[in-house]
């Protein structure tokens, strides 16, 4: 890893070349950052599908990763902004707590799984189970999402600018789902809900924050029917 002494804001202060050093060294360096310190800028070169890149950051870091990433990139992120110039394998930004993770390409399954806060922006498509068990994260997908996305989603917002696959929002709790394109079908207890003006405003603000050019009025809103919240034998077919 090399440190640049520069005052130019656009240049990274730290460059970590994964051909020269390994994932462990990168993560340790990121973990050694003081959470209270001002933001530092990092550039990670030659990511070639490495797993667990930039996981567990708890600092005001701005990390740019060049190349495709493996499983769990930016997992459990706190405060940092991580941008990936490539595609991502399973579990991108899993259990994210805060901060922003932006993927320039497409994501494999379980993107932002169980995320509890922060924002995940996927500029391509996301495969199956995007936002599974999400617990407060905001997810904005510029493309489409695969089947079972939003499964058991508890809190937060999942925004899909393209289409959604089979069983969207199955067993949904209190998360909100917005889809602009077609929905193949809805999962158990997920229903379409009225898109009121307050939802349009809220969604537009989120799209703008995510830097995605889209008109919130073109989206439809989905949420929980709350019929599975307490067991009822007459709803047994839905379980």
């Amino acid at each position: 890893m090399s440190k640049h002494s520069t005052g130019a804001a656009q240049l990274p202060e730290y460059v970590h070349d994964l051909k020269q050093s390994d994932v462990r060294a990168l993560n340790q360096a990121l973990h050694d950052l003081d959470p209270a310190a001002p933001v530092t800028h990092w550039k990670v070169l030659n990511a070639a599908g490495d797993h667990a890149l930039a996981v567990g950051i708890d600092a005001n870091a701005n990390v740019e990763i060049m190349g495709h990433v493996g499983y769990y990139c930016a997992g459990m992120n706190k405060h940092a902004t991580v941008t990936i110039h490539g595609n991502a394998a399973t579990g991108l930004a899993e259990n994210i707590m805060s901060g922003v993770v932006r993927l320039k390409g497409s994501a494999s399954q379980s993107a932002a799984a169980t995320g509890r806060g922060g924002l995940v922006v996927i500029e391509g498509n996301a495969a199956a189970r995007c936002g599974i068990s999400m617990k407060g994260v905001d997810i904005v997908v510029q493309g489409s999402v695969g089947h079972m996305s939003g499964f058991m989603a508890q809190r937060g917002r999942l925004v899909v600018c393209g289409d959604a696959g089979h069983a969207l929002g199955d067993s949904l709790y209190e998360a909100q789902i917005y889809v602009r394109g077609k929905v193949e079908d809805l999962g158990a207890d997920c229903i379409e809900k009225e898109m009121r003006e307050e939802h349009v405003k809220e969604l537009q603000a989120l799209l703008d924050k995510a830097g995605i050019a889209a008109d919130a009025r073109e989206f439809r809103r989905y949420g929980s029917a709350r019929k599975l919240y307490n067991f009822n034998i007459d709803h047994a077919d839905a379980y």
Partner: protein
Amino acid sequence: MTAKHPGLVESYLFNRDTIHEIQRAATEGIYDIRGMGAKRYVPHFDDLVFLGASMSRYPLEGYRERCDTNVVLGTRYAKKPIELKIPITIAGMSFGSLSAQAKEALGRGATAVGTSTTTGDGGMTPEERLSSKTLVYQVLPSRYGMNPDDLRKADAIEVVLGQGAKPGGGGMLLGQKISPRVAEMRDLPPNIDQRSACRHPDWTGPDDLEIKIREIREITDWQKPIYIKVGATRTYYDTMLAVKAGADVIVVDGMQGGTGATQTVFIEHVGIPTLPAVRLAVEALTELDMHRKVQLIVSGGIRSGADVAKALAMGADAVSIGVAALIALGDNDPHLDQEYQKLGTRAGYYDDWHAGQCPAGISTQSDHLASHLDPVLGGRRLANYLRTLTMETQIIARACGKSHVHNLEPEDLVALTVEAAAMAGVPLAGTSWIPGRS
């Protein structure tokens, strides 16, 4: 058939219990849910006995000669393995299923005797962390309350694939136990029936699990031992795959293992007993030359020092207790019999741990009921029980001539039944016959 009512012939298939259950299901329209573990008889440690010292084996003096009990867990990869003074740990039980007082009492009791306790589905509470010197943090499919700060606060991490009471099943916490605090910790609305997923959300299969474990190690800078817990089913293969996935420690939970709330049909009909599970796990570890390098913790029906000693003799490094620990705290205590009768049951039979009405203040989220449990006194009772288990284990180990409880070995055991001999892989008493091997 009963002597009191000659001529009345009770059906074996449709006996009174079966008839009652059919009538209950027809009335209520829902399967029976309860706590505790399997209640029916299955071959267990009771079906084994120790041979003890004899002409060819030299015993140790009961109150004079040293018999150590310590165990080190996580020696394979973790930078900071944990050392426990006794090989008996407290199993994972959630805040939500249990009151905060109960979790604190478990921590106090475990800490007093130098062993570990474990979080559960629902995350880590400050009371639990404060009261537990050594705390194992569970990573479960639901990921309720999961966060990197608690991962780093933990002394070890346990990735839970299943539990003995319900291998292949998720969890449930009925609405009456989802108090505002439990709801907040789990990011759910209060008072709803909460379902925990049966599969992890971000990995599928052992190859993925290996990568998941690597992520957890990276987040915690390779400091913490990582356990993998499985419910006992295909234990030989699960153990091998857990080793392959990078576990420091494997926890195998037999079908007698407890639960806070599971369908009776699941508890009684899915999974294998603890007895064969121990043997299968040890065989797999030995096959891979990883026995004692990857430590094995066994749970499911551990009640006495005899059970502990038998599990260790079969090759376990430690055991874990859940139901027994709750009983030590005060669950099913006879002095509460009147309260149990108000709930339609009796002390000694209470298993509605899912209902949130526990008069002992253990399996409840009611502030009033939970106040019935004094965490200090509960911790003291648990410590007493753990010390008793440890001394009982030492008594047996010394009788077999062992200066450390880990020196107990299968050669010290024989079985009383053909079934137990086959499952445990030790000879039928009075013979050299191990069914399936000779």
